[in-house]
């Protein structure tokens, strides 16, 4: 039977299933489910509501920051400053409220701080051509130091007149008994997913990660988009900081220390490519979930906590290995 040109052009080469199986995020979801099933059978304490609550809560903070990081990683950049920005935003919120201002003022100041930091990173990277690694590494140090300056390196646990409001914001469970942070995570993930898939901005982010030169030549406003991307990353860290402050009820200058590694690990395990051009909102969350389940399970199975780093690092390398294997097969 002769196949016309129009038929060839209209043909869809990939079925839904073949696309699903080629998708790293799908396999990480399977891994998370299998791990959960195994742990439910192997231990008595995994499938308890208290432990599940613990896991979901721990996942959320990493996941929210990972959502912002996903934007940066898709453009082929990296943001090492997220942990420190989270700390700085929390501290600005805490100090402002401690000084007697309302929660609205506190949150506004905190978000503004995050956005300024993100814009600073972005302008240096996009307009002055600094390598993202260097700029954000510097900011990692600067932001944490500023948090110490702001608080004089003390623990803040009294948040002025709106103290209770802040605790309710982070620690409450307003809808169906789902912890508020989980709710925020789901909302932010939906927004992220929408932006990446359905907006011109999202499309341009992928284009920059795929071929920055081509994006410039075709008239994509590459520099502006890069600045916005680093602002989004800092904003997500700031939001996570606000929520975490409400959840913990206290802020130390240690908050978010070393978090950048976990966040980057979550995005990469979820399928984002550090070389740029690939990444999803779901991937960021699933990656964060896998890391947390691994961590949680080690404790429950009675494995020495010192092994945690080995397992999480192993998961990162394994995730990238899958990607390499797929690429080898394609180039054959």
């Amino acid at each position, binding site marked *: 039977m002769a196949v016309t040109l129009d038929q060839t052009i209209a043909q869809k080469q990939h079925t839904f299933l073949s696309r699903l199986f080629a998708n790293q995020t799908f396999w990480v979801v399977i891994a998370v489910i299998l791990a959960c099933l195994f742990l439910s059978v192997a231990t008595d304490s995994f499938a308890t509501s208290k432990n599940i609550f613990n896991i979901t809560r721990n996942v959320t903070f990493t996941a929210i920051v990972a959502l912002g990081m996903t934007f940066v990683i898709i453009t082929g950049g990296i943001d090492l400053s997220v942990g420190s920005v989270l700390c700085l935003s929390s501290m600005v919120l805490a100090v402002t409220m401690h000084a007697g201002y309302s929660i609205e003022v506190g949150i506004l100041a905190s978000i503004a701080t995050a956005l300024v930091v993100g814009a600073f990173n972005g302008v240096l990277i996009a307009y002055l051509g600094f390598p993202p690694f260097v700029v954000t590494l510097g900011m990692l140090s600067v932001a944490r130091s500023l948090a110490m300056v702001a608080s004089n390196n003390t623990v803040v646990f009294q948040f002025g007149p709106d103290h209770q409001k802040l605790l309710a914001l982070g620690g409450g469970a307003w809808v169906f008994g789902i912890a508020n942070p989980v709710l925020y995570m789901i909302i932010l993930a939906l927004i992220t997913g929408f932006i990446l*898939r359905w907006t*011109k901005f999202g*499309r*341009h982010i*992928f284009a920059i*990660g795929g071929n920055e030169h*081509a994006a410039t030549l*075709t008239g994509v406003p590459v520099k502006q988009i890069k600045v916005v991307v680093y602002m989004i990353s800092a904003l997500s860290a700031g939001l996570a900081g606000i929520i975490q402050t409400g959840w913990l009820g206290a802020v130390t200058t240690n908050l978010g220390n070393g978090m950048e590694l976990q966040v980057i690990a979550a995005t990469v395990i979820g399928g984002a490519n550090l070389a740029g051009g*690939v990444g999803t909102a779901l991937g960021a969350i699933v990656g964060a979930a896998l890391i947390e389940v691994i961590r949680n399970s080690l404790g429950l199975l009675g494995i020495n906590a010192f092994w945690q780093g080995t397992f999480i690092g192993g998961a990162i390398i394994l995730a990238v290995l899958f990607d390499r294997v797929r690429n080898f097969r394609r180039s054959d």
Partner: protein
Amino acid sequence: MSVLELANISKHFGAIQAVNDVSFSLEAGEVVGLMGDNGAGKSTLVKMIAGNFHPSHGTMRLDGKDLVLHKPADARQHGIEIVHQDLALCNNLTAAANVYLGRELRRGFGPLRILDYGAMYKRAGQLFAELKSETRPRDLVKQMSGGQRQAVAIARTMLSQAKIVLMDEPTAAISVRQVAEVLNLIRHLRDQGIAVVLISHRMPDVFDVADRVIVMRRGRKVADKKIASSSPEEVTGLITGAIEQVA
């Protein structure tokens, strides 16, 4: 009337005279081969037409009206499209996404406007059909052959009503079969009344597809004649300088 007319165009960078007093015109539905050795001024000339450089002297006229370009976007707005030598494609995006890169179609109202995937797939498919290229709009460019990649880059120029398409070395570094494919794509552009400027080092391609050949040497135009009245030997002589100049 000519689509594009260049009159006494010169461009110098400091003391270096890259293009020196070049004049030519371009007719609709004509393929012009632009040839010359490295550094002969081909690229500089094309970059002035594409809005990357501003001429030091001389004027350009498009459809009889004076043409002043400040940036590449201006050229595009006037219906001058360029296919870059490296094609400027994003491997991680689909063919349709690449065709529409920078001018995505959207639907919806006001601030909430979403990408119109359906319309972009459909129009990209039509363009590939017009180009007689077996290219699927939903496929990633990563998985495509050199000829298909060219089709994607060329389809991009057909989105708006292009009058002139400038092609920078489209047949360098692709296989023989794909060269034939690309030359066919050029013929399809010509058949739609588009003027094509083909910059190439490959003599057979120019003699295969072009109606006219312009030869540049050291910034000057040394020949501008019908392909039918020239020969590869003559053009080679003009490029190297063995033949000084022809009318």
